[in-house]
């Protein structure tokens, strides 16, 4: 019997090695798998490359991961925020490397990794500093920049509902990077608010089919609020 349910975030992350590349879901705090991130800090993995839209907010989640000095490099589109002080400090001190990627290019590089695409041309960033040193090509009447996929060892994402085959649905804008990150990692771990029996997710409404998901760990919203 296939059973992708794992009892705890710690158990779900037990094999994450130092130096892993990790796609971390979320846009700001929406969709950020906070309990999985906490478990990653507790595990003490070091030298991580983290891919996220941002670079942490306030004290929890990705900000805490940076503060705990687990992160060597961040690939993101929007690190600077009013409450990104942990990133700001680590970046200014030179201990944290930043690869800044336009948001749509970040999404497409992740999607390309999951979809088996070798590289793609995008019009975004042509003629700007973020395309410096990159191969470009004129196709028709437009100029494009060559971009490569972002493959990862793990994806840590947050979904709303999951079954033991790993089928997932999401909640509103917390969906953001979840579905494409799930496709792009060798091992995708989803934190879900609710687990359900097979068949209880309408097949027409499955957003991430279980083929992209290796482990599902339940962290209910009630438990989150209590904590």
């Amino acid at each position, binding site marked *: 019997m296939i059973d992708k349910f794992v009892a705890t975030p710690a158990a779900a992350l037990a094999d994450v090695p130092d130096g892993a590349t990790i796609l971390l879901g979320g*846009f*700001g*705090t*929406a*969709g950020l798998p906070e309990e999985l991130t906490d478990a990653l800090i507790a595990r003490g993995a070091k030298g991580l490359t983290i891919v996220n*839209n941002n670079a942490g907010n306030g004290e929890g989640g990705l900000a805490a991961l940076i503060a705990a000095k687990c992160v060597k490099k961040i690939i993101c*589109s*929007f*690190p*600077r*925020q009013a409450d*990104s002080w942990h*990133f*700001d400090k680590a*970046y*200014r001190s030179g201990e944290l490397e930043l690869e*800044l*990627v*336009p*948001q*749509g*290019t970040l*999404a*497409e590089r*992740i*999607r390309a990794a999951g979809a088996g695409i070798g590289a793609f041309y*995008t*019009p*975004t*960033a*042509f*003629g*700007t*500093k*973020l395309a410096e040193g990159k191969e470009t090509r004129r196709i028709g009447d437009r100029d494009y920049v060559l971009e490569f996929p972002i493959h990862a060892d793990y994806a840590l994402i947050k979904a709303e509902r999951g079954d033991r085959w790993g089928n997932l649905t*999401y*909640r*509103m*804008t*917390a*969906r*953001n*990077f*979840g*579905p*494409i990150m799930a496709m792009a990692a060798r091992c995708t771990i989803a934190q879900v608010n609710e687990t359900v029996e097979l068949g209880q997710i309408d097949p027409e409404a499955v*957003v991430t089919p279980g083929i992209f998901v290796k482990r599902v760990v339940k962290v209910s919203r009630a438990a989150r609020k209590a904590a």
Partner: protein
Amino acid sequence: MKKMDRNQMAARVARDIPEGAYVNLGIGLPTLVANHIPAGREVILHSENGVLGIGPRPAKGAEDYDLINAGKEPVTLLAGGAFFHHADSFGMIRGRHLDFCVLGAFQVSVSGDIANWHTGAPDAIPAVGGAMDLAVGAKKVLVMMEHLTKEGTSKIVERCSYPLTGAACVNRIYTDLAVIDVRADGLHVIDMAEGLEFDELQKLTGVPLHYRETAKA
């Protein structure tokens, strides 16, 4: 002369957005445009984090932080709204499906280059977000910004001194002093703040402007 305030600027932008348009409003000043779409005009707002059909701000106490806009502020969803993942969201942007985007800017050049993501200062932390995708992707790129910097120099320039967000992509500029079209033959003044004379506007702006009384919209 009376400068337009932020709400007057937003109302002026909203006036140009027609029924049925799909629109992305950038973070900050452009977000105000949503409050000025005339009642009864159906305009569908997109936010790059993965939502179409954004409604008004939620009532105090009714915020749900799983339902936010690109500025990470809580929003509501209109009946008919939809959620989608990031690659689809940027497919909508890059794939030329959005009718308008409204961006803030540090500078816009006579040829329609825009700089809005980085001051280039050595200790500045850069952040680009979706600005570069919006600049190349939206069918019409509208810029909303103050006409002058705090030091009083024109933000409309011959060449941007800050790093570019996109080249030759801006269609129209809305400032607190004027509405200006970017065309192949240069900048054309469409509208001016109440009581502002063209000569004065030209003096305040760093680059040559075209103006015909009959061109007034």
